[in-house]
C-alpha cells in the first residue's frame, strides 16, 4: 500500500517538476533562445532522478520533451513541429535527459553501497568492541580480586573491618565475574543456535522470585516493589533462561538507579499475553533510537559494570519465547522495560 503510494508520489513529483520548468520557461522565453529552454527541462529531470527511481526519471525525460514541444516549439500549443530540425533537438534532449537520469541513479546506488559498507565497518567495529568491553569487564573484577587477596596475604593481621572489607570485595567481584561469564556463555550459545527452550508453565512470581534470590546480595538495602497478582495464569517459559532475563533487567536497574530509589516489578494479563515490567528511578535512557540499548556491546554511558550483553541476551531470550521487549522512559523519570509474552506457547 505505502509502496504504491510512494511510487505514485514519485511520478507526481516528475509531473510537478515539469510543470515548474514549464512555468519558468514561459517567464523567461521572451528573453532567451528557444533551445536554451531545453537546459531548464534537463535540470528538472535531474532533480527527479536524484530523488526517485528509474521509472519516474525516464517518465520525466519523455514528459520534458513533450512539454517543450507542446508549449514552446512553434506552432505552440500543438504537438506539431514546424521545422524538422527540432526533431533532432528532441532526440538529443531525450538522450541527454535519459543519460542524466541514468548517471544520477548510479551515483545514488553508489552512495547507498558506500553506506552499507560503512555499516559493515560499523559491525566490524562493534565486534572488536567485544574484546575491549569484555576484557575491560573481566579485568576490573579480576584486578580487585587479585589486589584484595594480595593485601590480605601481605597483612594477615589487618584490622577486623579492613579484613572484612577485602574479603567481601573478593566475593562480590567474583560473583559479578560469574554473572558476566554466564551471560557470555548464554550469548554464545544463542548465537550458535545451541539453545533448546525447555518451556513449561510457571507462575511468573516464581520466575521473578528466583531472579531476586539470585541477586540477594547486590539487592541488600534496596527496596523492591512488586505487583504480581496472585491469580495470574501460569506462563510457558524456560525457567532458567527467563530467570536470566529478570536477573539482567534487575541488575541493570541496580546499576543505574540511585540506591535510595525503589525497583518496581509488575505483571498483568493483557488479552492472550502476559505483560511484565521492570522499572527504575535512574536517569532513564538517552539512547537514540532507544532500541539500541538491546544491541550487543552497547553500553549506555559511564555506569560501572556490564559488558553490554545483559539486555541483548534479554531480547534474544524473550524473542525465542515468541515475545517482545521494549525500553521506555517513564514520564516521571527512570527507565522501564516492558516484556510481552504469549500465554499459550506452541507445544
Amino acid at each position: 500500500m505505502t509502496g504504491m503510494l510512494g511510487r505514485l508520489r514519485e511520478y507526481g513529483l516528475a509531473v510537478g517538476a515539469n510543470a515548474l520548468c514549464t512555468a519558468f520557461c514561459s517567464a523567461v522565453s521572451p528573453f532567451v533562445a528557444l533551445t536554451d529552454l531545453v537546459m531548464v527541462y534537463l535540470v528538472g529531470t535531474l532533480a527527479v532522478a536524484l530523488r526517485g527511481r528509474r521509472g519516474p526519471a525516464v517518465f520525466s525525460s519523455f514528459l520534458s520533451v513533450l512539454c517543450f514541444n507542446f508549449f514552446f516549439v512553434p506552432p505552440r500549443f500543438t504537438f506539431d513541429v514546424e521545422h524538422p530540425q527540432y526533431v533532432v533537438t528532441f532526440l538529443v534532449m531525450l538522450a541527454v535527459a535519459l543519460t542524466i537520469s541514468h548517471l544520477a541513479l548510479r551515483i545514488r546506488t553508489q552512495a547507498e553501497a558506500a553506506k552499507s559498507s560503512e555499516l559493515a565497518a560499523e559491525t566490524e567495529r562493534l565486534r572488536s568492541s567485544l574484546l575491549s568491553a569484555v576484557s575491560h569487564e573481566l579485568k576490573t573484577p579480576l584486578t580487585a580480586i587479585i589486589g584484595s587477596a594480595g593485601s590480605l596475604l601481605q597483612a594477615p593481621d589487618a584490622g577486623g573491618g579492613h579484613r572484612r572489607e577485602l574479603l567481601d570485595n573478593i566475593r562480590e567481584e567474583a560473583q559479578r565475574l560469574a554473572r558476566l561469564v554466564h551471560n557470555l556463555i548464554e550469548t554464545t550459545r544463542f548465537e550458535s543456535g545451541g539453545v533448546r527452550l525447555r518451556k513449561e508453565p510457571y507462575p511468573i512470581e516464581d520466575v521473578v522470585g528466583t531472579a531476586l534470590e539470585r541477586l540477594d546480595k547486590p539487592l541488600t538495602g534496596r527496596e523492591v516493589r512488586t505487583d504480581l497478582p496472585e491469580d495470574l495464569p501460569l506462563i510457558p517459559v524456560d525457567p532458567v533462561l527467563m530467570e536470566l532475563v529478570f536477573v539482567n533487567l534487575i541488575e541493570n536497574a541496580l546499576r543505574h538507579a540511585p540506591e535510595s530509589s525503589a525497583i518496581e516489578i509488575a505483571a498483568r494479563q493483557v488479552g492472550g499475553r502476559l505483560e511484565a515490567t521492570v522499572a527504575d528511578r535512574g536517569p532513564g535512557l538517552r539512547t537514540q533510537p532507544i532500541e539500541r540499548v538491546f544491541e550487543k556491546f552497547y553500553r549506555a554511558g559511564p555506569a560501572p559494570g556490564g559488558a553490554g550483553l545483559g539486555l541483548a541476551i534479554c531480547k534474544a531470550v524473550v524473542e525465542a519465547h515468541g515475545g517482545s521487549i521494549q525500553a521506555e522512559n517513564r514520564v516521571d523519570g527512570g527507565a522501564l522495560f516492558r516484556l510481552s509474552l504469549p500465554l499459550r506457547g506452541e507445544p
Partner: protein
Amino acid sequence: MDAPQTILIVDDEKAILRFLRASLEEAGFSVLEASSGRSALELAAAKKPDVVLLDLGLPDLDGLEVIERLREWTSAPVIVVSVRNDESDKIEALDRGADDYLTKPFGVEELLARIRVALRHAERAREDPEPLYRHGDLRIDLTARRVWLGKKEVRLSPLQYALLSILVRNAGRVVGQKQLLKELWPEGGSNPEALRILVHQTRHRIEREPVRPRHLKTEPAVGYRLEDSEDPS
C-alpha cells in the same frame, strides 16, 4: 566428642580441591581426596566416608555412574557439585540417589549448610523425624499437624499441608519435582503444573512476601527446598 566426620571430595580440579580441603578442615571435618571416579569408588569402599562431595565432570567415569555404584552398597549422603545449565544432570543425579547438589560457584556457608543437613538426615534415617520445624516466623508442628506464621495459625488445605510435611521431613534439602509428584499424588493423575500451583498457593499462606520467599525456595527446573530448621534439636 567423637572422631571427626570424614568427607570424601571427588574433583579433578586442584584449585577446587585446595579450597574445599581448607574450608572443610577449618570446619572440623577430616578430608579425603579423589581426582577420578575409580579412585573415588576405591577410597569410599576402603574408608567409608560420612559424606561424598562429588563433581559430575570426572576424567574417567560419568559422575552419574559413580552415584549408582556407590548406591549399590552405601547410603552415605552424596552431594553433587555441578555447574548451571545442567539442570537435567541434577535431576538425573537426584533420581539415581544423590541427596542434594551444589551449583558452582558456591560459597562456603552454603557448602557447610548442605553437609550439615546431609549428615543430620543420614543420622535421622535411623530415628524418628524431628516433629517441630522452626524457621524465622514460620513454625510447623508435625505431631499436632498445625502451622503458625508468627502468632497466627495458618489454615492449609490437606494437600498444602502434605506438601509442607514432605518438605519439613527433608528440611534444608532439595526435593525433586518427581519425588513430590509421587508422594503427593501416589495414584498419579497429576502433573508438574498442578504442583507449581500448589507451591504457589502454599507460599501465599506461609510467606509474608511470596515473591521473595524466606522459607520455601525454588530450585529452578529441579524442585523445591524448605530452608533448614533453625532449632533442629
